[in-house]
């Protein structure tokens, strides 16, 4: 079975699952899973018992393991260099409401200029230009509700 590439924060691992063993970046150990209650399972790794619970949402997984909670996501092949490297898209770092749109399409901006101000409960967050350029499009208007990761504007 081919491995699954997974990341959590700045860390990432390749995990290969077999019927009764797992391999994490080359560290192979026997595993066994046993149901404990409605939510938790016992996960034995190389003879050491852990208590775990998990919930998956698409490519994202929340794992509770021995009293700590971690968020993982499956690493997908990187998008085409065109989209990723230009850094031309401005995405919402959090869900919130657009409080102010400081620019319009066609405006020239310098790196660090405020493009938009988002507001989420009790705080404002300025979205700034990652580099010098011209605003190609602004996809939101003042008052709009946005989700985390949504594209707000484009710079070229």
């Amino acid at each position, binding site marked *: 079975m081919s491995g699954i590439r997974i990341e959590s924060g700045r860390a990432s691992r390749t995990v290969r699952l077999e019927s009764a063993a797992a391999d994490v970046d080359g560290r192979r150990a026997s595993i066994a899973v046993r149901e404990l209650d*409605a939510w938790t399972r016992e*996960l034995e790794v190389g003879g050491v018992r852990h208590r775990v*619970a998990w919930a*998956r949402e698409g490519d994202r997984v929340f794992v509770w393991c021995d009293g700590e909670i971690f968020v993982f996501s499956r690493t997908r092949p990187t998008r085409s260099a065109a989209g990723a490297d230009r850094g031309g898209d401005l995405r919402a770092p959090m869900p919130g409401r657009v409080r102010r749109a400081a620019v319009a399409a066609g405006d020239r901006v310098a790196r660090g200029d405020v493009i938009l101000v988002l507001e989420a409960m009790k705080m404002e967050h300025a979205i700034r230009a990652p580099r010098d350029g011209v605003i190609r499009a602004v996809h939101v208007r003042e008052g709009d509700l946005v989700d985390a990761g949504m594209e707000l504007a484009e710079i070229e």
Partner: protein
Amino acid sequence: MSTQPPLRLPKRLLIANRGEIAIRVARTAREMGIATIGVYSESDAGAAHLAHVDDAEPLGNGGPSETYLSSDRLIAAARAARADAVHPGYGFLSENAAFARAVEGAGLLWIGAPPGAIEAMGGKLAARALMEEAGVPVVPGSPRGASDRELVEEARRIGFPVLVKASAGGGGKGMSRVERPEDLPAALDEGRRLAQAAFSDGTVYLERLLEGARHVEIQVFGDRLGGAAHLFERECSVQRRHQKIVEESPSPALDAALRDAMGTAAVAAARAVGYVGAGTVEFLLDASRRFYFLEMNTRLQVEHPITEATTGLDLVRAQIEIASGAPIPRAWTDGTLSQRGHAVELRLYAEDPVEFLPRSGRVHVWREPAGPGVRVDAGVAAGTSVGVEYDPLLAKLVVHAADRGAAIARARRALSEWIVLGVETNAALLAEVLEAPEFVSGAYSTDLVERIRSRAKEPDSESGPPDAAWIAAALALSSAASATSSARSGASTVSGAGADPWDDHSAWRAGA
């Protein structure tokens, strides 16, 4: 209160709030035999608090300002439900004098502070002046009505860094730290803009920034007969973005003499505004054990349960009884009441662990801690959707034990039992606070979270979760495994919505 003539308690209480505080109030009301009426916005139709009330009135469509912040809709809801009293909880309209008057004007019992006291304390600048008159020490700062030029002069006199604060503010909104004189004009402009947007009052003022200070508050009560008393302190120095995340009582910084002095000052503050009901007087306590009035919150606080744990009292019951005309119990003023043991509260927020920005999502798995000395006041349950329209507080964990060491150990144990999957939370930061040497020793101040964060940047970034967690993630991601670790896909613990979390949302593949 047993020696008084029988109180005329309300019979039908409208709770003008949502989330954990609505549930908290409903629980006590039901214990007192009072019928409870909840309210909900359209987007809250399946919210957790509605499972804890006898009746529920819709507030209609729209955001908070058209629903939970709409005095007209709330009064109409109270009328429709034949309520005879209103409890505002905290936040929303709890410190809104116009709403308090509207409630009283509608012939309903207002279980909150008198409108006059709300107004006297609502303007931070006016409150500072009032406290100075009452002999309560205030943080050195700028006076009322100062011009920009005068404020720059004031800042020089007070000494940098200074804080720009909104007179109508609260919760750190519109507040900023200014290090250099040349940054002050811009900070004043930004503070006014934020204050105007948030509170419709752009008045700002300056206060000396007390480095290394602690934030200690005193719970007070006033009654309708002119009585006032305090119920000791809460230590609230563990904050991020000027908002509390961990509180404890007693404060490790107070001895009996300082507790008595701060309690006396807090009661003087309450008396100065003719206070009735539950209120909290917040103080800054500097490194040389001098304390300064910061503000008075004219409502029940989020962290009130640690006072309940250490005094054995039910503060919501006290609010309802005192609003109904009961006097402050003699035991609160004659020295009979004492603090017993130690309590710690941890606030679980839906937020990202790095920048503390609010997070939304759906709570797929929710298992609360339990056991001796553990109380959870939660506003969510399995299946609850957490949006960004409302405060991101999910729940409070309150532990009580014989002493501080045992309480911290209990807090760690209880936190490790808490399984919250589906929304990112600050649980890891709470665990770090409980392990921080400063917190463990008790020698910490309001910069504790920043100190923890600056340490966290040093270690190697290659650490990350243990192998068992990576394997569990791989099991979850592999197509053969179910979407949650639950083997029984119907075993939901949804208490409010009536919705099964597994039967909707296409992003979720519930496995066999």
